[in-house]
C-alpha cells in the first residue's frame, strides 16, 4: 500500500536524517583530517562519553533536576499569571508592556543578579530555568482564555454563570491545547536556562562540566556534553508532546477518526 509505506517513511525520517548528519560529519572529519580540538568526530565524542560516563551522568542528572524544578515553578506561576491576565482586561493592559520588556532581557544578563541574591549553584540554576520557562506558558494560557467565543459567554452569562463558572467550564478547557503546546516550548527553554546558569555560576551540572572540559581543551568531552543536553531536550519534549496528544486530542480533531456525514 502506498499510504502505509508513506507512513513508515514518516516514522523513519528523523532517524534517517540523524544518521545522515552523523555519516557526513564522520566522513568530513576523516576526509579533511580535521583536528579533534576543532571538530571531533562522532566516534571520538562517543568514546569521550563512555570514558567519562559516570561524571557526565551525574552532572546531567543534576541539570535535569534543576530544569525540572524550575520548569515546575514556571508551570505554576505561568498558569496563574496566564489566568489572571487572560481574565482581567485591566491587568492584561497594565502588565503587558512589563512582560514584553522582561521577556526581551537576555537571561544571561540576569544570572549575575541572581548570583548576588541566591549565591552560586542550584538555586540560581533553578531560578534561571524558571525565568525562561514561565513566559510562554503565561502567554499561551492567556491566549486560550481570550479566544472564548463571546456568543458562548452570552449564552452562559444569561443563565447566571459566574466568572468562575466560565473559567472552569469553558476558559480553562479551551486553554488546554495552548497550555500543552507551550509546555513543549517551555521545557526546552528551561534546559537552556539551567545550562546557562551552570556555565556562569555553578560547580555542578552539565554546563559546568562543559566549561571545565573547554578550559582543559577536552573538546570531545565538551561535545559529549552538548549532545547529552540535546538528547535530554528531545526526550522531555517527546514526553510533553505525548501528554499533549493524550490530553487534547479534540483540538487536533483526531486525524485518524472519521467524521460523520449529514
Amino acid at each position, binding site marked *: 500500500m502506498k499510504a502505509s509505506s508513506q507512513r513508515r517513511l514518516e516514522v523513519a525520517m528523523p532517524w534517517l536524517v540523524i544518521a545522515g548528519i552523523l555519516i557526513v560529519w564522520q566522513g568530513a572529519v576523516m576526509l579533511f583530517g580535521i583536528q579533534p580540538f576543532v571538530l571531533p568526530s562522532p566516534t571520538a565524542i562517543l568514546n569521550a562519553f563512555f570514558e567519562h560516563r559516570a561524571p557526565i551522568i551525574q552532572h546531567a542528572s543534576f541539570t535535569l533536576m534543576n530544569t525540572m524544578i524550575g520548569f515546575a515553578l514556571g508551570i505554576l506561576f505561568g498558569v496563574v499569571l496566564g489566568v489572571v491576565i487572560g481574565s482581567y482586561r485591566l491587568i492584561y493592559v497594565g502588565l503587558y508592556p512589563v512582560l514584553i520588556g522582561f521577556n526581551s532581557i537576555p537571561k544571561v544578563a540576569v544570572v549575575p543578579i541572581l548570583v548576588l541574591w541566591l549565591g552560586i549553584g542550584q538555586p540560581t540554576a533553578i531560578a534561571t530555568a524558571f525565568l525562561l520557562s514561565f513566559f510562554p506558558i503565561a502567554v499561551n494560557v492567556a491566549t486560550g482564555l481570550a479566544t472564548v*467565543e463571546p*456568543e*458562548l459567554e*452570552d*449564552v*452562559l*452569562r*444569561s*443563565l*447566571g*454563570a459566574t466568572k468562575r*463558572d466560565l473559567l472552569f*467550564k*469553558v476558559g480553562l*478547557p*479551551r486553554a*488546554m491545547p495552548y497550555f500543552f503546546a507551550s509546555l513543549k516550548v517551555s521545557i526546552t527553554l528551561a534546559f537552556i536556562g539551567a545550562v546557562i546558569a551552570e556555565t556562569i555560576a555553578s560547580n555542578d551540572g552539565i554546563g559546568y562540566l562543559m566549561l571545565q572540559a573547554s578550559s582543559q581543551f577536552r573538546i570531545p568531552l565538551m561535545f559529549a556534553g552538548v549532545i547529552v543536553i540535546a538528547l535530554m531536550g528531545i526526550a522531555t519534549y517527546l514526553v510533553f508532546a505525548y501528554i499533549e496528544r493524550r490530553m*487534547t486530542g*479534540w*483540538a487536533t*480533531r*483526531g486525524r485518524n*477518526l*472519521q*467524521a*460523520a*456525514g*449529514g
Partner: protein
Amino acid sequence: MNEFVKLEDVALRYGGPDGTLALDGTSMSIAKGQFAAVVGPSGCGKSSLMKLVTGLNPPSAGAVSVAGEKVEGPLKIVGMAFQNPTLLPWRPLLSNVMLPLEIVEPHRRRFRSHAAEYTARARNLLRMVGLDEFENKHPWMLSGGMQQRANLCRSLIHEPELLMLDEPFGALDAFTREELWSILQSIWMTRQFTTILVTHDLREATYLADVIFVMSARPGRVIATHEVDLPRPRTIETTFDPKFIEIVHTIRNEIAQIRNEGKAAAQDLKVA
C-alpha cells in the same frame, strides 16, 4: 393580551453618551407562547434587542420586562442560540447539551443527584432533532446542520420559558435550513415556549412566526408589525401559498424602502 415580553420606548446606546445609538424608541410586546420574529436591514440593532431582553445589557432609556417583571440582570428562564453553534469541542454531544444544567439554578444543585433524569431529558431532546445516534460524537465530527441542531437542544435543555434565537440558521445551506425550520416548529408546537427569532431571512420569519416585527435602519425602531395567520404545522408547501408570498413581498418592500431612505439621507448629507 397576556404580555410576556414587553419593550416600552427602549433605547440602547453603546460606548457612553456620544456612542452609537443602536436602538431608539423601540416598543413591542409578545404574548406568552407566541413565536415572534424580528427582521430588518443589517445593522438595525436586532442583536442588541437580544441582549436587552436577556438582561445582558441594560437599556439606556425605556423599560424591558419579561414575565411581568422588569429585566435588571441576566434572566435564567431564557435559552439562547446564535448563528455560531459554539459547542464545546472537548465534550461529546450529550454533555454539551447538558451544559446549561450545570450552570442554571435549581438544576445546578441537583445535577449530580438527578443525573439519570437529566441525561434522559437530554436524550429525549436529541431524539426530537434526530441526533440520538450521535450523543457520544464530538461536535467537530458533525456537519454544521447537526451542530446547529445540538445547539438548539442546548438552548432548550433547562426548559426555558423564553427562547432567543439570533440568526440560528444563517450559516446553513438552504435545504438544511428548511429542514431545521420544520424541526424547530414541531418542538415549539409541543412545548409552547415564547420565542423571539432574529433573522434577515424573510421566508424563515414568515414560515416560523406568529408575529413579525420589521425594524428600521440604525437607530433601530419597530416600523411595522405583521400577524401571520397561516395554519400550523406549516410546511414547505406553505411557502408557495399566495398568502405567504404576499406577506414576504410586503415586508421586502418595507425593508427596501428603509434602505432607499437610508441611502437618500446619506446622499443629502454629502450634498450639504
